């Protein structure tokens, strides 16, 4: 995919200035997601669940080579063809070969962030293959010609009015059609695609080493259909998706669902063990799993940030992030946005391209608070900021600010004094402080509240 992460500040400014409705739509969606998560965490012993899930992932990652080999053996025994890919280009080659073998002309896709990371759609289309996104949100943004703006809700930046207008143009639905009518129009178009496609492409939420199970969570049924109706299924799976045991699955499915949408479990879960078997009436004749590195082994070697590989892509850290909420995901210029995107970007894209994103944060720590696998996201953001500054790749003002922040943060009294001092300065002065200028350019003069954000945050919701 095209990457524009180095332009974060300019993109964020442009969205805030030119597309104010995006902020409104994103805040509405993320606040709702987060409320659902909070309720769902409250229904269970979420601290115990999260400590357990963190260890399930860390255990698999600290034994990753063995579990990858075990997964490969079980998958192969299950009749799955396993491929390994170091780069996006390797993935494209595998897809090209599999598509050619099976005479594939049309592909139906389930939502997969990894496929966005790898630019799979463009690669297939260059081969003359038609690619149809089937998750309703993904279908909408494919029609708009946009990338997803959120891990779980790819089209949350789009309002009902935007989609009414789009479907009126594309499907001839009435200009003020209800969400039900719009979904029905999409269902008709996509049902046809499912029944005529030759290949389904999905990601994978978990890959169980012990049984070779590929597990996929969804709500619409489009992934079940994409893995059942076409004659070939190809799953793109990051190597970090491996978990050790079948008995890990029930807990991981539930916690991921609660963190993502507040559901006890996603409406549909597919646990796949290979192609259609003898005596089964339907199902694909071939299943391929592509195990993808694309920078992940490099992350694994990094003592300070390897734990970000525990991420289950629930989106909880995006939903709670005060910076993400202002712009949505497109400002980040890359497939992964919000706090997890800002941690992955410098690791997977390098400091030149990804170094700007860790500065898109208030370091409030809300992301770390909600993470279902307890990734210390705000610590990692600080690590990447320091590395970016040390490499001389951060804007000068950011570097100065960070040094001052770090010095002050080590001395709480000084930190409080500084914060209080900033609050006492008249706006006319603060507006001249270089590091506040860009922020104020989009936010305008705002009154400073008396208790600090962090203190209010710790006091909890009103």
């Amino acid at each position: 995919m095209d990457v524009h992460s180095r332009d974060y500040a300019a993109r964020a400014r442009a969205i805030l200035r030119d597309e104010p409705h995006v902020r409104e739509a994103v805040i509405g969606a993320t606040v709702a997601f987060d409320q659902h998560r909070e309720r769902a965490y409250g229904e269970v012993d979420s601290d115990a669940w999260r400590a357990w899930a963190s260890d399930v992932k860390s255990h698999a990652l600290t034994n990753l080579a063995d579990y990858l080999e075990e997964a490969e053996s079980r998958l192969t025994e299950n009749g799955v063809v396993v491929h390994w890919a170091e780069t996006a280009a390797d993935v494209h080659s595998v897809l090209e070969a599999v598509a050619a073998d099976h005479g594939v002309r049309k592909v139906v896709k389930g939502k997969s962030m990894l496929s966005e990371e790898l630019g799979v759609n463009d690669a297939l289309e260059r081969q003359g293959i038609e690619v149809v996104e089937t998750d309703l949100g993904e279908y909408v943004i494919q029609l708009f010609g946009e990338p997803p703006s959120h891990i779980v809700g790819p089209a949350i930046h789009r309002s009902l009015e935007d989609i009414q207008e789009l479907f009126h143009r594309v499907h001839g639905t009435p200009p003020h059609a209800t969400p039900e009518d719009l979904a029905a129009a999409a269902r008709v178009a996509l049902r046809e695609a499912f029944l005529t496609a030759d290949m389904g492409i999905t990601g994978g939420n978990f890959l169980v080493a012990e049984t070779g199970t590929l597990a996929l969570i969804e709500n619409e049924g489009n992934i079940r259909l994409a893995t059942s109706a076409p004659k070939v299924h190809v799953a793109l799976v990051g190597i970090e998706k491996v978990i050790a045991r079948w008995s890990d699955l029930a807990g991981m499915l539930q916690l991921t669902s609660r963190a993502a949408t507040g559901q006890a479990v996603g409406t549909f879960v597919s646990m796949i063990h290979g192609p259609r078997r003898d005596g089964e009436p339907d199902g694909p004749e071939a299943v391929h799993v592509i195990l993808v590195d694309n920078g992940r082994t490099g992350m694994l070697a990094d003592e300070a940030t390897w734990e970000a590989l525990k991420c289950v892509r629930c989106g909880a850290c995006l939903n709670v992030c005060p910076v993400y909420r202002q712009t949505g995901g497109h400002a980040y210029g890359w497939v992964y946005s919000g706090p997890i995107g800002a941690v992955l970007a410098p690791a997977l894209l390098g400091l030149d391209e990804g170094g700007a994103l860790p500065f898109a944060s208030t370091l409030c720590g809300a992301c770390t608070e909600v993470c279902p696998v307890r990734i210390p996201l705000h610590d990692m953001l600080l690590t990447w900021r320091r590395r970016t500054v040390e490499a001389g790749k951060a804007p000068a003002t950011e570097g100065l600010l960070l040094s001052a922040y770090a010095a002050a943060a080590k001395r709480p009294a000084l930190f409080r004094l500084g914060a209080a001092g900033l609050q006492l300065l008249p706006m006319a002065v603060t507006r001249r402080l270089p590091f506040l200028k860009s922020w104020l350019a989009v936010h305008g003069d705002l009154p400073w509240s008396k208790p600090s954000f962090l203190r209010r945050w710790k006091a909890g919701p009103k």
Partner: protein
Amino acid sequence: MRDRILARVRSALADREVVAHPGAFPGPLHAGPVIEAFTDRFRAVGGEVERFAGMDEALDWLEGFASAFAGVAAGADVPAELATKLPTVPARDAPLGVSMARYAAADTGSLVLDSKGGRLPQLLPPTHLVWVRADAVMATLDEALEAGRGDLPAVLALHSGPSRSADIGRVIVTGVHGPGRVVVGIVD
């Protein structure tokens, strides 16, 4: 390629402390009578649940229920005694799909379906009737998956209510791709 990736993984982990497996999932909720708990959970997400004391009661109900449909696509694993009198049609044209669940899980309100009887009757018809035996309803998803471990088919699937999406205007719409109406028949 494979060997290079695995070598890089091993080298990355050379000095990393191994994290022990945490053991069993601490989560399962035990919420009183199992069938009632399943029923509450499944209805809360928009599903329908019918409970029958025996096969005769189930068949009486089925006759009335089926009369609203013009044809059926049934999974090959649905017991012959639970067959409807409706004409069989391909799943893509059928207004009603019928399946047999291997298990159900009360804490998540999930039906555990199997690919052996066919997947498309579970997915394509707008209404899906799923039979499950009362003694196959487990307290937790953990237990249901553990029970399934010995015989993992090409696909083991969880269906936990009607197909839904909130991708358009944050309004929950049902029946987007999979069935918009799911009816569970629990037979003692």
